[in-house]
């Protein structure tokens, strides 16, 4: 593995190796000394063209816990705002000796362009590109599900689990990455969204689609319920172009206490963050003991440590 661009690129064995490595990384994070010398002398650049708090901090923490040097580069206030192209930015990073570039970009396909154009020789980790992919989020979600719902997690996949992903699937790279990864790991995926927020051409996706949350709660034995953020900043024409009112969205797709109690007792509630409390999820659901939303953040560091380790350790120049 040289780059981590898309959840689709990961085979079942690749995915399980990353999750198992993440489990070992997570164990080291419970120690008094949480820093490991593993990537000493390597440089990781966080290249963020889009606002992000948790993903950037999570990657930064992951790289630092492995002793890599971290350079943060955000588009705001950099030469990018003066009109520099992605190519020239990449050449600059190459000249600075970046061993890995973590890239978040508003354009779908930006990470792949960076990885395959020969502009730089470092590994590229996609930290979200447009509405396309966010593979480390899918991996941390799978890691969290495996930890809570699989009896003997190490070495195993998610076969037999049913995961419902609810909300703004259209604009969600998290949903796309999750559908692919969860399918690879053997889970059944149900997407729950209004028809206006289901992407065109969804037919070949390896998942079921239903149009109300109540329908999904009735028809499926849900082990993990993942609520998506309503991404108004990506909605041309604002939310009104996709659903009549926030109140109606909340009534049909929101997770409140009553719907939460209809889930099986062991089921967990997830959200990739940041949450719109009161819109897609109520405070009662978000703060309930079944919610693993805060734990997802902690697991994100372990998963990103695993990804950085697997991409950067190993022979220099080897594929």
């Amino acid at each position, binding site marked *: 593995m040289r780059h981590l661009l898309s959840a689709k690129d990961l085979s079942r064995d690749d995915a399980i*190796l990353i999750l198992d490595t993440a489990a070992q990384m997570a*164990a*080291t994070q419970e*120690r008094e*000394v949480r*820093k490991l010398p*593993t990537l000493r002398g390597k440089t990781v650049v966080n290249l963020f063209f889009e606002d992000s708090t948790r993903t950037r901090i999570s990657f930064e923490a992951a790289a630092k816990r492995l002793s890599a040097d971290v350079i943060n580069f955000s588009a705001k206030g950099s030469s990018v705002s003066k009109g520099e192209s992605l190519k020239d930015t990449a050449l600059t990073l190459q000249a600075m000796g970046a061993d890995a570039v973590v890239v978040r970009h508003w354009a779908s396909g930006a990470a792949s362009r960076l990885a395959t154009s020969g502009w730089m020789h470092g590994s590229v980790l996609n930290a979200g590109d447009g509405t396309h992919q966010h593979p480390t989020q899918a991996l941390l979600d799978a890691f969290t599900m495996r930890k809570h719902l699989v009896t003997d997690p190490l070495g195993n996949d998610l076969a037999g689990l049913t995961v419902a992903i609810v909300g703004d699937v259209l604009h969600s790279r998290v949903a796309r990455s999750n559908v692919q990864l969860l399918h690879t790991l053997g889970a059944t995926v149900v997407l729950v969204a209004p028809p206006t927020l289901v992407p065109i051409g969804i037919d070949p996706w390896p998942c079921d689609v239903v149009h109300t949350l109540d329908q999904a709660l009735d028809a499926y034995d849900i082990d993990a319920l993942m609520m998506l953020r309503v991404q108004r900043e990506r909605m041309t024409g604002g939310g009104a172009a996709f659903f009549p009112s926030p109140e109606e969205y909340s009534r049909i797709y929101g997770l409140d206490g009553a719907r939460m109690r209809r889930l099986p007792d062991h089921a967990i509630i997830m959200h990739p963050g940041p949450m719109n409390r009161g819109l897609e999820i109520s405070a009662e659901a978000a703060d309930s003991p079944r919610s693993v939303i805060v734990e997802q953040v902690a697991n994100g560091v372990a998963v990103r440590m695993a990804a950085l380790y697997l991409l950067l*350790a*190993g*022979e220099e120049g080897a594929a």
Partner: protein
Amino acid sequence: MTGTIMGAADVSRVLTRIAHEIVERNDGALDVVLLGIPSRGLPLAHRLAQRIAEIEPGFDADAATGALDITMYRDDLFKNPTRAIGTTTVPDAGIDDAVVVLVDDVFHTGRTIRAALDAIRDLGRPRAVQLATLVDRGHRELPIRADYVGKNIPTARSERVDVHVEELDGEDAVILRKGE
């Protein structure tokens, strides 16, 4: 001389002797913690712990044995294919002020033990660290020595020493092979 250098009986006798040496050197086994280096150091550590428990009735073999994976501390991570990371488990009581006995199958360049010493440093501050190894084949590249040695086997650098253990390989044996 190549071929099988030690059989099951030899391995068993050597482990019994080392167990006695550990108890003798440390005036008992009260603070002793055995950390096996995966993969083959780990079953050897468990066997040593059982033998110590037979000599010292107060010694809780399970509670005093752990695994120390050193992958992330290696100095050759960027010269070899990516390695999978193994499990590290430390006794619940921790290793602060304990006498840690590292257990490995083959003692060669000393680089594994150097990595293990770094790994221990991140886990706590033992009173002392000692090293037990089934085979010492020489060719040290660092100023590190073993406290307990099962058998010294003079080797050429090109030769290979394979240790088989019952738990992983179905038999106990130490085999010396000609190099390529």
